[in-house]
């Protein structure tokens, strides 16, 4: 699986063979099971998969926010700007969180502290990481509110989260993430909890900010539609492993893993002739404590062969930058359609 061992200096974040486990009452869950991927400065990378596939855990592992003692990282490296985050002390990690790597969470409704003003919640990180005085921090807060498109900043900063709508709150979360000018933002399902119309606004905002400020972004989502529009590169995760990776264009054009294919088929598309119905993936996401031998996706896979039950398929190059972990990757039907919009 360690298909790449040489350090790549241009990488902002390089996750190598990461293993994260959780001890539950039903046994050990390998939420992240030997995963490698990377993010370059300024680019937008997507981590895609159903809920429970380990994508959020990956992000939390990077932040060092895996809840102990149930969860722990059992192996691998997380190289940020070339040095391994897993070797950092808690205090060193604290200095990186919010300053170097910021995070935007899925639930804007609950991720803001209800009893503190939004001003307080934006300024505190600057005060701690950048040593801002309250005045400087306030000025910065006004500035970032402007960046995320919230007008009337002075007044808004004195308000409490419940006085903002969902979309506005996610803007606030982004503002908080931006406040210390981090190099990388991890956005965990940033739009899932929002109305469809708001979703696009938020994603556009993020894309725009990322480009303007040169911040690298990791978007974690289950929605390939989102990926297609906003990500440069895509990693598809299933049951704690990466099953396919490539540029957004590659993956859209010709998914080389049955799971990716299934994901794409379950997304409604405007550019295709009306189908009978969407084709959701059969079956349930697997129980991570009782993974079948061989390929984890086999029980739900329409293309499974005997070999799939015995050997775990490795992640191998298909074409270009595209990799897939499927024994039958070459026999999959080629998808005869393009994504709605190809990222520039």
């Amino acid at each position: 699986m360690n298909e790449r061992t040489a350090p790549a200096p241009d990488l902002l974040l390089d996750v190598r063979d990461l293993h994260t486990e959780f001890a539950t009452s039903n046994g050990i869950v390998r939420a992240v099971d030997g995963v490698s991927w990377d993010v370059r400065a300024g680019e937008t990378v997507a981590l895609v998969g159903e809920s429970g596939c380990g994508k959020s855990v990956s992000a939390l592992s990077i932040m060092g926010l895996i809840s102990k003692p149930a969860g722990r990282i059992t192996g691998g490296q997380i190289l940020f700007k070339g040095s391994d985050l897993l070797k950092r002390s808690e205090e060193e990690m604290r200095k990186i969180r919010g300053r170097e790597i910021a995070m935007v969470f899925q639930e804007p409704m609950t991720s803001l502290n209800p009893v503190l003003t939004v001003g307080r919640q934006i300024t505190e990180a600057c005060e701690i990481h950048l040593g801002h005085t309250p005045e400087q921090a306030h000025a910065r807060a006004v500035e970032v509110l402007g960046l995320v498109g919230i007008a009337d900043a002075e007044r808004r900063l004195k308000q409490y989260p419940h006085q903002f709508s969902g979309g506005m709150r996610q803007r606030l979360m982004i503002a908080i993430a931006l406040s210390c000018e981090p190099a990388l933002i991890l956005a965990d399902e940033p739009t899932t909890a929002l109305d469809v119309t708001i979703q696009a606004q938020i994603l556009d905002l993020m894309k725009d900010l990322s480009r303007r400020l040169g911040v690298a972004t990791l978007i974690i989502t289950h929605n390939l539609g989102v990926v297609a529009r906003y990500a440069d590169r895509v990693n598809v995760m299933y049951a704690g492993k990466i099953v396919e990776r490539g540029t957004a264009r590659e993956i859209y054009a010709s998914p080389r893993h049955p799971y990716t294919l299934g994901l794409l088929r379950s997304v409604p598309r405007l550019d295709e002739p009306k189908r009978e119905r969407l084709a959701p993936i059969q079956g349930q996401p697997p129980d991570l404590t009782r993974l079948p031998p061989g390929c984890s996706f086999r029980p739900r896979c329409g293309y499974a062969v005997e070999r799939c039950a015995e050997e775990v398929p490795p992640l191998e190059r298909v074409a270009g930058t595209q990799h897939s972990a499927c024994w039958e990757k070459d026999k999959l039907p080629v998808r005869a359609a393009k994504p709605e919009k190809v990222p520039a």
Partner: protein
Amino acid sequence: MLRFVIHRFLLMIPTLVGVAVIIFLLLRVIPGDVVEAKFMSGEGSGVSAEVLQAERARLGLDKPVWEQFAIWFWGVLKFDFGISMWTGGPISEEIELRFALSLQVALMATIVATLLALPLGIIAALKQDTWVDYAVRIFSIAGLAMPSFWLGILMILGFLIIFEWLPPMIYTPFWVDPWQNMLQLIWPALAVGYRYSAVATRMTRSSMLEVLREDYIRTARAKGLWLKLILVRHALKNAMLPVVTVIGLEFAFLLGGLVVTEQVFNLNGLGLLFVQAISRRDYTLTQALVLLVAAAFIFVNFAMDVMYAWLDPRIRYR
């Protein structure tokens, strides 16, 4: 906010009136009355029925119940609780000293409970499912399990046998002699405070656990804040809301509900007065006491709601 406060305030009124009506009727349903309790319990018992009737008339007990209630309630509205049917002295005079004592014990016990509960509860939550957590939980559940009168007996015996020392017998108001006052009241405050800390500790722990699982705590951690700052600024304020409620309500309970402890520690407080008043069928005094305790309880409840609203902007701006 103001509308909220007014609304809550108005809701107190029917409750208080309900308490007044119920206690008034209840006392009159209980067999025996103050005149009997007073003149039919001693050695003489030679008091004739006419004399009893005359005494009832003197106390206004011969009037129809609704009229008695009207007279009494009209007085209450003017903050005049009347005179004790047993001693003939004004109610305020009967209650004054006892109230001071009970209030002080309640306050001290609440302070003891708070000082124990907050640190213990927070530590237990932070170290959930470790031996620290278990130790705190066992300590606090033991406090709940031990009958306070039993604990009191053990304490008094301990003083006597081990130290050959005894707390003062008679209540000295704090402003008269703080030292004597403390020497007497610190022990019941500790015994009761320990017991009530158990409730508050458990509430602090579970509330803290709940808050620590909140998304905004994760957000705060993701911002790279210091742990202390997360606890103090982000967790505590939210976690304290239910804790403050519990402590406040316990305080209100303590004001009127320390009957057993007062007996064990020989405190002449409201609890004892309560028992005496009802066993003497001192209607006016019992009514005043019930109303006082209920009002304290209801008011604390109200104050908690207002404080909730003040601490939690979601309610304030509703």
